């Protein structure tokens, strides 16, 4: 079934408003994306009270920033430390925190990531160029329910004194999924 044919028949029957489709696409193409999550991470790096509240009970904190909604109704933020690295997957489909990161990238939805992230996370991380120290354990979060996970990466060395905006610019989308490590460019 072609998309255009389906859209046409649903429109003719008055079941969808094509302008609503445009509005949804514009929202996720231009307005809701990883910049939201990056602002949250930068704030957590800058403000210990905010970070403590975010890790204790993320939903009210995120709702206060306007980052609540579809596919982000029940959020948990998990913190990377020198002892533990966190990484998020959905082995059963493609669950992902839309209000903070937008629509998941292709690799997150791929069979290779879904099948392997739980069994061999370190080999998968290596494919992203991430090599963890031997002393760091990996905790993989398989999003099997309606709870959505965001990784709070470690604040990079050399970022002391940077503003929240400058910090947010260091936070990649993948670092909030757990497949990248933020760094200060040399």
């Amino acid at each position, binding site marked *: *079934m*072609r*998309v*255009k*044919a*389906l*859209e*046409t*028949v*649903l429109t*003719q*029957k*008055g*079941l*969808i*408003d094509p302008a*609503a*489709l*445009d*509005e*949804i*696409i514009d*929202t996720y*193409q231009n307005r809701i994306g990883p910049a939201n999550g990056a602002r949250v991470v930068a704030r957590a790096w800058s403000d210990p009270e905010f970070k403590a509240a975010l890790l204790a009970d993320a939903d009210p904190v995120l709702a206060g920033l306007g980052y609540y*909604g*579809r596919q982000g*109704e*029940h959020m948990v933020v998990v913190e990377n430390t020198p002892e533990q690295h966190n990484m998020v*997957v959905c*082995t*059963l*489909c*493609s669950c992902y925190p839309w209000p903070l990161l937008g*629509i998941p*990238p*292709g*690799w997150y*939805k*791929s069979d*290779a*990531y879904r*099948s*392997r992230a*739980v*069994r061999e*996370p370190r080999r998968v991380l290596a*494919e*992203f160029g991430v090599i963890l120290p031997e002393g760091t*354990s*990996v905790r993989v*979060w*398989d999003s*099997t*329910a*309606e*709870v959505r996970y965001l990784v709070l990466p470690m604040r990079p060395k050399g970022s002391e004194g940077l503003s929240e905006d400058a910090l947010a610019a260091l936070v990649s*989308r*993948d670092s909030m999924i757990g*497949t*990248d490590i933020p760094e200060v460019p040399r």
Partner: protein
Amino acid sequence: MSRLHDMGGRFGDGPVKPEPQDAPVFAEDWHARALAITLTSGALGQWNIDTSRHARERLAPLDYTRFSYYEKWLAGLVTLLVEKGVLSRADLVAAEAGGGRQKEGTGAEVAAPHPLAARALQAQEVAAALARGGPADRPSTIMPNFAPGDAVRCRRPGGNRLVAGGHTRLPTYAVGAKGQILRLHGSHVLPDSAAHGLGEAPEPLYAVVFPAMELWSAPEHPRDEVVLDLWQSYLEPV
């Protein structure tokens, strides 16, 4: 038995190929349309998120394998539109024959309004609908049997206990595995029930942590772990 979507731990899929982080959100225009049509069709209120996941999962295994991501979404959507009586097969055949062209004519052949047309999501309602989302937490009369730190085991056999071959969110790789309760998320809609029109049946939902050594024959590191969100009825005490 499992279906192909239940692929956690599977061998043979090859490397992950990360695309650049600034790659377009939608690789093709039709991907964006497919996502938006799926969301607006959901707003008609004829199914829930569990029903729609199940519609994709029960694609024939050959189709699940050969369809791209958004092709699976479209196939699942078409299945639901027909099963729930929103569209008829004749509607779909006519639409395909028309190739997406608008119907031409005097207007005399336009049928009466569709009974669900009043529910169609309008452009000015989109922002509010996306912001509202669809929370899955519900009050429940089922009390939590477990507390953080408790040892639990995933029940064996896995699979839906209400409907043979039905939807479930217990991945096969965790069936029979022993773990520990990490946190209680509250009570959430039970997908095994809600996907099949059997009611929301909310019950306690937990994050459960499993040592990688409990799940895999050759774990990469002795201290690695996997956490899954699991409903109380998926678990038994150890």
